[in-house]
């Protein structure tokens, strides 16, 4: 397929996934901000989140304080914020538009309809229905788009590049979600999360990645930070974990393999096998923050390499 087409498909999927995960991060942070104990602390909490999303400077250029309203409106509507959900959904649609002939009509219409809706959403409407309802809507549109993709697209290269985009983005985003939480949680925390506050924080984190029920099912025990990390990093049967995301990245990558992608595949395979055979205790020894940052650097590098090998190749 055309390299440019593959590029648009890849980014279409990345932006949709990013919109969903942004909604997830905002949702969990918003819920934590509502906990009575956090009355004083909401501003640092939002600031920490923006920092990990690398949007701190863009935000501060416009807003003096990290109030809930300011951050949410910035992250949802702001047309100048490249990370806002508005911008992600617009980019999803623009990429889809550029290759609409390659998409099934159902998939194109799904993306177009999502865009038409967010385009018409106003802040007044958002606050009237509550941000929670909006985050639900974004997740729902992302579920729909993924379902329509799998349910209607031919299983050829185009689907592979869409899936590559989805999982590469998810790997990055899940790592960020973990960083946001551990930033707020780790200092002074002991192994178990039996304090009421901790419990709510951990369960909110799990819920934000749809992992609360999964945790209960897998561990049948109390919530501890170590196990939460294990679930979201190393468990390949957990759909939003780093291990699962990398497994999908690797397998989709090997299926579009070309004459110059060998090194990219090797690097992806290496990262995937680290996750497959890794132990959570070892990761904690190395240092959790360092581990996640290093992981995100590798994901970034993989993204660049995929671009060079497949999406924006130089002549011949």
């Amino acid at each position: 397929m055309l390299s440019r087409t593959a590029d648009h498909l890849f980014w279409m999927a990345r932006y949709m996934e990013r919109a969903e995960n942004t909604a997830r991060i905002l949702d969990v942070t918003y819920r934590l901000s509502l906990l009575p104990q956090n009355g004083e602390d909401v501003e640092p909490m939002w600031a920490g989140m923006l920092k990990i999303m690398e949007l701190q400077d863009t935000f501060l250029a416009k807003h003096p304080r990290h109030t809930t309203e300011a951050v949410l409106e910035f992250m949802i509507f702001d047309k100048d914020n490249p990370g806002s959900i508005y911008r992600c959904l617009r980019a999803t649609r623009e990429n889809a538009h550029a290759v609409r002939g390659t998409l099934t009509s159902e998939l194109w219409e799904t993306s177009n309809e999502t865009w038409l809706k967010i385009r018409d959403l106003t802040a007044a409407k958002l606050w009237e229905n509550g941000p929670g309802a909006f985050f639900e809507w974004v997740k729902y549109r992302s579920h729909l788009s993924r379902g329509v993709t799998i349910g209607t697209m031919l299983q050829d290269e185009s689907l592979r590049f869409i899936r590559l985009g989805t999982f590469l983005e998810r790997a990055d985003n899940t790592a960020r979600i973990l960083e946001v939480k551990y930033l707020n949680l780790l200092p002074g925390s002991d192994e178990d999360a039996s304090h009421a506050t901790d419990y709510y924080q951990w369960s909110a984190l799990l819920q934000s990645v749809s992992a609360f029920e999964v945790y209960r099912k897998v561990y049948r025990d109390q919530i501890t930070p170590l196990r939460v990390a294990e679930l979201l990093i190393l468990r390949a049967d957990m759909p939003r974990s780093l291990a699962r995301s990398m497994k999908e990245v690797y397998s989709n990558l090997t299926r579009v393999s070309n004459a110059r992608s060998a090194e990219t595949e090797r690097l992806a395979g290496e990262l995937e096998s680290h996750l497959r055979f890794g132990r959570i205790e070892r990761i904690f020894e190395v240092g959790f923050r360092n581990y996640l940052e290093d992981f995100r650097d590798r994901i970034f590098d993989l993204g660049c390499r995929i671009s060079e090998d497949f999406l924006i190749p130089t002549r011949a």
Partner: protein
Amino acid sequence: MAITKFFNEMTADDGSVRAHYAGYAKWLNDTPADRIERKRAEADALFHRYGITFAVYGEESGTERLIPFDIIPRIIPAKEWKSLEAGLRQRVKALNTFIHDIYHDQEILKAGHIPADQVLKNAQYRPEMQGVNVPCDIYAHIAGVDVVRAGAGEFYVLEDNLRVPSGVSYMLEDRRMMMRLFPELFARHRVAPVEHYPDMLLHTLRSVAPVGVADPTVVVMTPGAYNSAYFEHAFLAQQMGVELVEGQDLFVEDDQVFMRTTQGPRRVDVIYRRVDDDFLDPQAFRKDSMIGVPGLLKAYRAGRVTLSNAIGTGVADDKSIYPYVPEMIRFYLGEEPILNNVPTYMCRKPEDLAYTLAHLPELVVKEVHGAGGYGMLVGPASTKEQIESFRKHLEANPDKYISQPTLALSNCPTFVENGIAPRHLDLRPFVLSGTEIQMVPGGLTRVALREGSLVVNSSQGGGTKDTWVLEA
């Protein structure tokens, strides 16, 4: 404005419904108004969701609009279509022969039927094409000929669009919409199908591949997602199952065109290009073109790739050449033209200019190289001031203009704000030429939605209707 009697497609002069509209008129009469209203709203919502839009130039960039769709079809009886079709085949055949002649021996110029200057000094004449052979000697593989019905119902050709005619996707989407909204109408009428157009187009494109290519790779080339007709480009590529490429996706090496794919370079044999000649190749034409492919002309002249339509077809659909088409038909085919031409005054001739200036309020004046309904004067619909200001342009640059009598275009009942009212329309059938000439029955019907307006272009607020050729 003089009171003119217009030919009404649905009703005869005595007010009775024409036979081919009888079934539809009864249905319209029997269907509750609120159901129709609901269906019209549904059509709007669906067009939005499908993203069947066009970009409007001169407005905020990225502005996308719907082309209004009217649910009252334009119906053509099979017998009328048969003669229209014969006339269109004849015309397009003569035009293709003309282009071939102009870029080879120029017999028609030597015979003195057309002044050589008119052709060779025309901006649309491409000297680069002189002596170049193209597969099957066909230049305009896709022609969109604009036809109107005027006077007592006779057909006239207004324009032969032989460069990159658009609109066929609306023809197909209008049909899809009608069938979705009102399936019962299709159970009651024998409407000739049009859905196989993309198949026919692909067949045509493959048939004109460079000699010796057994299984040609066809692509559609678009200027990009912000082009006004992008929807159509994407639609046709998808329907034919071929790649939609931009200039940046292609490159030329050893006179062979390749596209950049995820698996490396891949050969391209036929390019259905929706990019104007001027922008095709920055090495050969406009150097500032960002949407072309350097070296494309050279590969083309070497016969290694087919461009569809060919370069230089504009020399045959230019408004200054239009008056000579009947002569071409006689000269090349030895036949009398089946379709009428509109009498045309060429303002470069002093006597025609004098006539035009004296009769501006009755005439339509068009720019020779204009298109899309821009830069024209419709005398009877213009104010004194508009006419006087146009007169100045005309006097300053008479060569740029032609004029024609204002045709009393036929009209057809159409939904407007206050119910149903007659609106003027035209018809653009699409003629495909490869190893054979093929057409789907009908074409795109465009309708001028403003009362009294004769301009049907979508850029000027025109709408579309489904076109039915009704088999008896």
